[in-house]
C-alpha cells in the first residue's frame, strides 16, 4: 500500500461520517452554543420555484424553530424570472438579489457569484451552502454538514455525498450520481491530486465551510467553483482540513449530456488554471472559452458554439467593504 493509499484510508476512517452519527440534535445545538459559533444557511437560486418553498419550510422548522442550530436562512438569487423569491420570502427566508450585493463590484451571472457574495452578506462563522433543486429535502442536508465543524475544530470544509460505494459480491459499485465526477474530475484528481479522490462527490452542491477559509478562497463564478475550492484548500491545508458526510440519497433533476458537456468545459478551464497557478503544468497554450458541440438534423451537421468563461472573483478578504462589515 502506497503512502497515499494509507493516508486516504486513514482519512476515510476518521473524516468520513454518516448523517446518523449526528442524530442527537439537542447535543449538536448545545455543542454549537458552547463553541460560540453562528451558522448561516445559503441557498443559491435561479428559477427554483418548484423546490425552494419546501427547502425553506423544512430548514426553518427543523433547524431554527425546533432546534436553534441555524441562525439565518438566506436565498441569494441570480435573477429568477419565476416565483422563486416570492415563495422563499413567504416562508420566512431572507432573500437577496445577487446584483444588489456589493453593487460596486458589478454582477456576474453564475452560481459561484452567489456563493461569493454570500460571504459578504451573511453573518455566520460557518456558511452552509445547499442547492435549491433537492426534491427529497431533509434537515440532515444542513445539520449533518455543519456537525463535523462544530465537533472537530480542525476540520474546515465538509462535503456531502450521497451514494455509498456498495460492495456487491466481489464487485464494487462506483460512487454513482455524478457523471462529470466519474468521467472528468476523478481522473484529473487521480493524476494530479490523488488524495482528493477520497472525496466521493467532489462536485456536490451541499457543503459547509468556516468563514476564515471561505474569505481567503478565490471564487470562479461558474462551474469550476467547487473544484477550485478543493484544490486551493488542499494546497494550503492538506486533506485533513476536509471531511465528508453521507446523506444517503439525493433526488434532483437530471441534466442532459449537452449540459454536462458545458459543465465539464468550465471545470476543465478552472482546473487547468489551477495547474498553472501551482506550477504543475508548463507551457499550456492560452486558454480560450469557446466550447464546441454539434447537433445533427438528418444528414446535416451543425456546429453549436458557446462562450464559457470561468471568470474568478478575488478572495473576499481582499475587499475593504468586507473587512469593514465583518471587522476583519
Amino acid at each position, binding site marked *: 500500500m502506497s503512502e497515499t493509499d494509507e493516508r486516504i484510508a486513514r482519512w476515510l476512517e476518521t473524516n468520513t461520517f454518516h448523517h446518523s452519527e449526528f442524530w442527537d440534535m439537542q447535543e449538536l445545538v448545545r455543542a454549537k452554543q458552547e463553541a460560540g459559533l453562528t451558522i448561516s444557511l445559503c441557498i443559491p437560486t435561479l428559477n427554483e*420555484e*418548484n*423546490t425552494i*418553498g*419546501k427547502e425553506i*419550510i*423544512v430548514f*426553518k*422548522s*427543523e433547524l*431554527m*424553530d*425546533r432546534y436553534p442550530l441555524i441562525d439565518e436562512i438566506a436565498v441569494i438569487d441570480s435573477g429568477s424570472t419565476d*416565483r422563486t423569491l*416570492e*415563495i422563499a420570502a*413567504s*416562508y*420566512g427566508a431572507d432573500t437577496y438579489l445577487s446584483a444588489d450585493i456589493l453593487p460596486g463590484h458589478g454582477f456576474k451571472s453564475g452560481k459561484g457569484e452567489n456563493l461569493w457574495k454570500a460571504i459578504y452578506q451573511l453573518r455566520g462563522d460557518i456558511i452552509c451552502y445547499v442547492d435549491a433543486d433537492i*426534491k*427529497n*429535502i*431533509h434537515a440532515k442536508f444542513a445539520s449533518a454538514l455543519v456537525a463535523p465543524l462544530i465537533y472537530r475544530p480542525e476540520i474546515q470544509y465538509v462535503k456531502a455525498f450521497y451514494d455509498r460505494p456498495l460492495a456487491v459480491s466481489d464487485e464494487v459499485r462506483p460512487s454513482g450520481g455524478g457523471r462529470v465526477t466519474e468521467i472528468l474530475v476523478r481522473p484529473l484528481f487521480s493524476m494530479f491530486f490523488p488524495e482528493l479522490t477520497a472525496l466521493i462527490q467532489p462536485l456536490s452542491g451541499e457543503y459547509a465551510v468556516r468563514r476564515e477559509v471561505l474569505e481567503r478562497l478565490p471564487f470562479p463564478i461558474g462551474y469550476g467553483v467547487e473544484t477550485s475550492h478543493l484544490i486551493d484548500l488542499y494546497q494550503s491545508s492538506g486533506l485533513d482540513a476536509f471531511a465528508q458526510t453521507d446523506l444517503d440519497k439525493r*433526488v434532483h433533476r437530471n441534466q442532459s449530456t449537452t449540459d454536462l458537456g458545458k459543465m465539464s468545459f468550465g471545470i476543465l478551464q478552472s482546473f487547468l488554471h489551477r495547474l498553472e497557478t501551482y506550477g504543475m503544468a508548463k507551457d499550456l497554450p492560452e486558454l480560450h472559452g469557446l466550447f464546441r458541440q454539434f447537433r445533427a438534423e438528418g444528414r446535416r451537421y451543425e456546429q453549436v458554439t458557446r462562450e464559457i468563461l470561468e471568470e474568478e472573483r478575488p478572495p473576499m478578504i481582499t475587499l475593504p467593504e468586507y473587512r469593514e462589515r465583518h471587522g476583519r
Partner: protein
Amino acid sequence: MARKTIKQGSHTTLLAQREALRSLREILFANVVMAGEIPAPTGYERRITRFLSDRFTECGLDNISLDQAGNVAGVISGRTGRRNLLVAAHVDKIWAESEDHTVSVGVGEMGGRGLADNSLGVAVLATLPLILDELGIALDANLILLGTTRSFGRGDLRGMRFFLENSAWEIDSALCLEGIELGRLSFSSLGMARGEIVVEVSRLHDEDALNEAASGVIATLSELIEAMLEINRRGGPDTRLLIGSIESGSGYSVPPRQGLVRFEIRSLDAGHVAEVEEELVQLVERFSGREGTSVGIEIIARRRPGNLGLEHPLVREAGEILAVLGVESRIEPSVSELAALLDRRIPSLTLGLTKGENRHSPEESILLDPIFDGLAQLVAMLQFMDGGDFTF
C-alpha cells in the same frame, strides 16, 4: 350537563387562537411535507408511525406505544384525568410505495399524493401538542393522540377497531382528522359493504375452448357491469352501488383469463345495504352457471350505519364554531374511522382541516391558509369536549 358553548364564550378568543397558531406555520407545514413524503400503503405503515412516535417523543407525551395492529398512540395527561378524549388520524394512504411521493410547495398551497388523505391529518396530529402549548391550553381530560393503520380497502378500519377493542382507555368522545374538506359536518356513518367480483376461465384442456372462454371474460364483465348499473338505478336516492374499478387483460391480442370488478354499496339504511348485497350474490350465481367461466363474490369490508344526530351538542357546537370562523358547513356522512367509533356508541365527529382538490389523484393538493381555520376548529372542539359529559 354544565357546558360552555361558543355562543356564551368569546368569538374573539376563537379568532385570536386562529391567528396565534400562525406562529407554528413552518413546523406544521414541515410536518405535512415529511408525512407526505413517507410512503404508507395500507399494511405497510411502519415508517409513518415511527415518524409520529418520534414527534410524540419530542413533545414529551406520556405512554407512547405501538400496538399489535401497528397503531401509534401518545397521551397528554389531563389535569384531572376524569375523562378521556381521543383525536385520531389514519396514517395509511391509497398510494403504492413505488409511486412518487414528492411534495411540492407553492404560494398558499401544497401538492402531492395523499396530502389530503391523510398526510395533513397525520401532520396535525403530530403538531397538536405544540398547538395546545402555544395557546397555553391544558385540558382537564386526558387527550389520547392516535395514528391508526389499515384504514383503506381490505384494511377495513382494522387499526381503529383493534384500538377500540383492546385499549385500556374508555373513550368519552372522539374526533377523527381528515385533510379535507374544511366545513364538513360528519356525524353519521353510512352503512357500507365493499367487495370484489372475480370472473375466471375454468380449467379447460382444449385450446380452442380455452380461447373462446377467455374471450368471454370481457363479455361477462360487461354484462355484469350493466346488471350492476341497473341495480344501482333501482336502488333509490339513499342507496348507491358504486363501481370503483375494473381490471382485466394485459395486452391487445391475448384474451384475458381473469377479470375483476371492485364495488361498494352505501346506504343510510343497513337493510338496504343487505338487500343490494343479496341482489349481487344472486347475480353472481346466475353468471356462475355458464360453461367455461366461474364467477365469485367476496365482501372485504363492512360498516354499520351510525348517526349522532344533527341535534347532538357536539354537532351543534361544531356548526357554530365553523360559523364563527366564517366557514360554510355542510353535512357529509363518512365511511372512515368514524364508523368504528359510532359503532361503539362513542360520541364522535370527523373534522376536515382545509380545502383541497383532486383527492386520490396524483395532482392532489391542499390550500394552506384555511388550515388555520381547521386548527382553530379542532382546538375549540377539544375545549368544548373537555367541559362536558356527552351521551350518544
